[in-house]
């Protein structure tokens, strides 16, 4: 039991905008009232619901591959020293699992969605998620280059495809469905890509990226998944890709979708030298079409490592940068590429990317549909979110950051003309209430009765980045986990899953195909329930 007294509460889900009121906690949930509970005096402090990250890469084969590639970063970053409370680890571009939990909780985030899981190595992802303490975790399974599914779409067998997807979600113990560069990663298996939405994918006659996207979005809606299709469009990072992005969104024809890291998909120009921001056009489209949510995938200047299932893009980046390159293709399903990268303010392309992420956050007018992410670690590391909050809340700070940029760079972006400054209420929306709603998690992202008692309390501070980087208290499931920068407790987080119903006969269809295409036994493919820490099976919904 706990009572938080006297804090200014920001709870956008209930329209509460800085009202001084108590928050009461019992048995891990928010309750109406508690008697004789210990209290936290939050007078003069700010109370938020715990942060929710809708799109991050923190566990599994890809990030673990990246860890092995970047020992030089581990050495220079913040290290966690083992204590009676916490495990050892390193932070940095690719934090170790334990450190990931401490760093997220340390800035008040209590729920994260790992955005890219191959079924084949989903056991690995879940093993790592189990070792990320404190936060609750969900994940999205990669399906837009799954060759069994593409074959079904080629044959026009939508109903069977739906059954297969339902089976695959449960087999991987996932929460949602992710599409990455639809068709392009499959083509990459022979060193090719998919750049045109309406052209057949390499090796197919009928299946196009457009059909994959529409098909998967339809299936996700038919299955009633609480989170819509999580979509990484084709042509990520490429100048002029706005056309592809808009075409993809039009092609969805009113169906729900979460457009991942739109920053990487909002560029004009014909090549690297003419690249420019098309954020206003994309923001206009977002504003006019309420079937979409998005996350920023914002970029901050500095070192990071780029990790994506988008193999062709990573090969291009390796050729452009001449730095280390890691690639891992996963049979019949997906792939991943890894390239360390430094975003530099003096680099025209990077300067545009930096601006586009902020422009999208500032120009999309509904904070319930655009969320704070950096596509960790691609645009920047998640533990730098407080810097982005400062950029959103302080126009003058943005101007200062742009002061050193060349006229050429400034002519390619729109940020200097944008005056909007986020309020605390809006920050609470894009970091917590909005992403929780988009994920379809009814007990997350708010402080109403029945919500999970994930609460973060900040000292009021004019230095916005400092305030959001160092919460006074973080409470997870009713327990104080962080106090004044110290890790006080490291409870296990929950594993959030869905179990859409499927026809049991689908296994009879899948088994022989699997035996032909794969190199492991079908019976060893599914993730066993015992691997999920504190599993919570969430309800499917009626999407009509």
């Amino acid at each position: 039991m706990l009572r938080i007294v006297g804090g200014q509460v920001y709870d956008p889900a209930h329209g509460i905008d800085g009202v001084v009121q108590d928050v009461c906690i019992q048995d891990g949930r928010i309750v109406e009232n508690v008697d004789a509970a210990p209290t936290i005096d939050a007078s003069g402090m700010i109370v938020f619901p715990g942060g929710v990250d809708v799109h991050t890469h923190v566990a599994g084969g890809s990030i673990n591959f990246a860890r092995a590639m970047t020992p030089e970063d581990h050495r220079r970053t913040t290290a966690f020293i083992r204590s009676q409370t916490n495990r050892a680890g390193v932070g940095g571009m690719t934090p170790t699992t334990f450190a990931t939990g401490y760093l997220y909780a340390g800035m008040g985030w209590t729920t994260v969605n790992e955005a890219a899981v191959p079924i084949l190595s989903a056991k690995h992802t879940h093993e790592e998620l189990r070792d990320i303490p404190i936060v609750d975790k969900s994940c999205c399974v990669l399906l837009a280059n799954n060759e069994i599914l593409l074959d079904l779409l080629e044959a026009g067998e939508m109903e069977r495809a739906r059954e297969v997807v339902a089976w695959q979600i449960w087999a991987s113990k996932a929460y949602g469905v992710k599409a990455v560069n639809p068709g392009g990663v499959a083509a990459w298996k022979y060193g090719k890509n998919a750049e045109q939405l309406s052209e057949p994918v390499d090796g197919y006659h009928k299946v196009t990226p457009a059909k994959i996207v529409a098909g998967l979005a339809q299936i996700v809606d038919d299955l009633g998944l609480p989170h819509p299709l999580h979509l990484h469009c084709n042509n990520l990072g490429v100048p002029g890709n706005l056309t592809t992005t808009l075409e993809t969104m039009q092609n969805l024809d009113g169906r729900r979708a979460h457009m991942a890291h739109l920053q990487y998909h909002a560029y004009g120009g014909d090549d690297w030298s003419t690249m420019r921001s098309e954020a206003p056009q994309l923001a206009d489209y977002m504003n006019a079409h309420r079937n979409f949510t998005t996350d920023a995938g914002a970029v901050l200047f500095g070192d990071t490592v780029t990790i994506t299932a988008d193999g062709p893009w990573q090969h291009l980046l390796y050729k452009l940068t001449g730095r280390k390159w890691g690639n891992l293709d996963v049979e019949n399903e997906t792939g991943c590429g890894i390239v360390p990268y430094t975003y530099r303010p003096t680099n025209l392309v990077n300067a545009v990317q930096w601006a586009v992420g902020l422009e999208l956050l500032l120009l999309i007018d509904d904070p319930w549909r655009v969320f704070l992410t950096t596509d960790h670690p691609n645009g920047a590391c998640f533990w730098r979110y407080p810097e982005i909050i400062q950029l959103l809340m302080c126009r003058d700070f943005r101007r200062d950051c742009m002061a050193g940029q060349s006229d050429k760079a400034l002519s390619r972006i729109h940020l200097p003309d944008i005056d909007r400054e986020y309020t605390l209420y809006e920050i609470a929306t894009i970091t917590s209430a909005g992403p929780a709603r988009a994920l379809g998690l009814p007990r997350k992202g708010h402080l109403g009765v029945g919500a999970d008692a994930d609460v973060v309390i900040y000292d009021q501070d004019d230095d916005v980045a400092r305030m959001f980087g160092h919460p006074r208290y973080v409470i997870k499931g009713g327990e104080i986990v962080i106090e004044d920068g110290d890790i006080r407790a490291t409870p296990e987080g929950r594993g959030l899953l869905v179990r859409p119903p499927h026809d049991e006969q689908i296994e009879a269809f899948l088994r022989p195909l699997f035996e032909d295409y794969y190199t492991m036994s079908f019976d060893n493919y599914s993730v066993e329930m015992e691997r999920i820490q504190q599993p919570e099976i969430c309800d499917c919904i009626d999407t009509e």
Partner: protein
Amino acid sequence: MSLTIVDNATCAFCGCVCDDIEVHADEHKIVAAKRACILGKAWFLNHTTDKHYPDALVDGRETTVDEAVQVAADLLDRADMPLVYGMSNITCEAQREAVALAERLGGVADSHTSL
């Protein structure tokens, strides 16, 4: 005596980790390992449930696991720079525990990879 049949058993002998082995076992030993290669077969068939070895030895003396665990803990905790090495022929779950122990001991954790 009835046989237990484990379909899709996994052979942990070499790095191929083939997981399509059909293992037949009675209560005492494995009697067949279908689809396993010559190395895998030899490995599967080489094991029984017999107690060929003492539970534990301390300085050559047979003892209980409990006592050996205590002695091991004393020796490892006393060291300034202990080493935890090997981890090839154990499960990931055991590897995870071994890393946690090395961390608690303030020692080094290492595997065959370093060879």
